[in-house]
């Protein structure tokens, strides 16, 4: 099978999905809201203009799928405060420019040179040899938490703001201000956690892959479930996701983290929705308790990242979007992170 055939096949599949989606949308009749909660899905949807080709009664919204964005302002301020004391820290790239209440990590690094941007936590092992007291900022969902657990396994201190997706889905299904008929579940979070865990959330769900055909396939499947009123979970990304997930990664998570309440931007404190470091000697929140306790509760700003994350408004409805808040001058995490809804909307000209 050559590349030309593949492209034609993909186009034909997409055409079939769109036809079925059209038929299903007509049969359903009423307005439907589908939410995706994965920065990678948001990106594909925006890049290929998928919202625009769906029937008028199908609304596709983005939820809290960006781990940097859902980190609370207070947690971000605490991490920045640690760095501002000159403590060597390591972090993924998209944390660098997130605005704290006063500075960003990038600002701190310009002054002290102590913020090390990494692509993979394996790089932190090397940094540890140079800086014995280095702290890693553990940001991310279940896909990324095992890479942080790897550092804990190697005796490296962590400030964890890792979060779990299923509790957020539960909170969103119960929310008053946004009604959701079905979820497109995240792809690589599901690789780690498995598809089985979503079953307990009583709402149609489809786990999707990362190209337009896969997203449309998932939407088509969701509309079938919605039409027939079936609270099922369909795995539409079977090559990367199985029922049990990655048991090795899960065991590593269980070894180094326990589940705790966690504060989500936009959703508030969700019970049992975050991962906290087990070993107090490696928990930066405990090692540097005085610094963390000294960080004040952040003041409210005009940034409406929280509402964007909840799906109650589009970026364009935020008064700061494009006027004050741009990628060059971000006012909140949703504009900084490459998985943030505002950054993605801005990039695709919305």
């Amino acid at each position: 099978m050559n590349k030309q055939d593949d492209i034609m096949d993909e186009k034909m599949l997409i055409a079939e999905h769109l036809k079925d989606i059209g038929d299903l949308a007509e049969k359903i009749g009423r307005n439907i809201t589908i939410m995706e909660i994965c920065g990678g899905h948001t990106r594909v949807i925006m890049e290929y203009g998928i919202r625009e080709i769906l029937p008028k009664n199908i609304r596709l919204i983005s939820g809290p799928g960006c781990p940097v964005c859902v980190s609370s302002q207070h947690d971000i301020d605490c991490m920045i405060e640690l760095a501002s004391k000159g403590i060597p820290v390591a972090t993924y790239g998209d944390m660098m420019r997130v605005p704290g209440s006063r500075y960003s990590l990038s600002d701190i690094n310009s002054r002290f040179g102590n913020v090390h941007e990494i692509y993979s936590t394996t790089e932190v092992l090397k940094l540890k040899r140079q800086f014995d007291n280095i702290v890693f900022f553990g940001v991310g969902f279940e896909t990324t938490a095992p890479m942080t657990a790897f550092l804990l396994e190697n005796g490296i201190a962590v400030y964890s703001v890792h979060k779990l997706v299923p509790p957020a889905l539960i909170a969103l299904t119960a929310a008053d201000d946004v009604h959701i008929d079905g979820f497109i579940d995240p792809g690589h979070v599901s690789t780690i956690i498995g598809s089985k865990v979503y079953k307990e959330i009583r709402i149609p769900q489809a786990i999707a892959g990362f190209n337009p055909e896969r997203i449309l396939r998932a939407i088509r499947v969701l509309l079938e479930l919605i039409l027939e009123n079936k609270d099922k979970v369909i795995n539409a990304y079977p090559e990367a996701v199985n029922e049990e997930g990655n048991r090795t990664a899960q065991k590593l998570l269980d070894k180094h983290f326990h589940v705790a309440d966690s504060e989500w931007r936009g959703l508030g404190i969700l019970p049992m929705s975050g991962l906290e470091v087990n070993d107090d000697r490696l928990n930066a929140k405990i090692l540097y308790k005085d610094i963390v306790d000294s960080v004040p509760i952040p003041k409210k700003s005009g940034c409406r990242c929280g509402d964007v994350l909840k799906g109650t408004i589009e970026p364009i409805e935020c008064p700061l979007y494009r006027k004050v808040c741009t990628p060059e001058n971000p006012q909140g995490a949703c504009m900084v992170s490459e998985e943030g809804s505002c950054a993605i909307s801005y990039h695709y000209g919305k």
Partner: protein
Amino acid sequence: MCYAIPAKILKIEDDTAEVDYGGVFKKVNVSLIDEPRAGDYVLIHAGFAIEKLDRKSAQESLEIIRNDLSQFSEEDFELENYRDS
């Protein structure tokens, strides 16, 4: 950070594998997957392999195949059974 990319393992030394992303070669950590072998296709996220892909599935995600959806009955839309033919 949701991005994960398929790659082929070329060789392994302890927990590190050299992989081929179709012409680009990198070293990744394979401690999160069971019994990785040279020739395996894996999904890589932030420098770690997070899942093995069987060769056919890997090629399916790297190349799109024709999926005749009319073959599927009601029962096929069960959790474990939604697969390409």
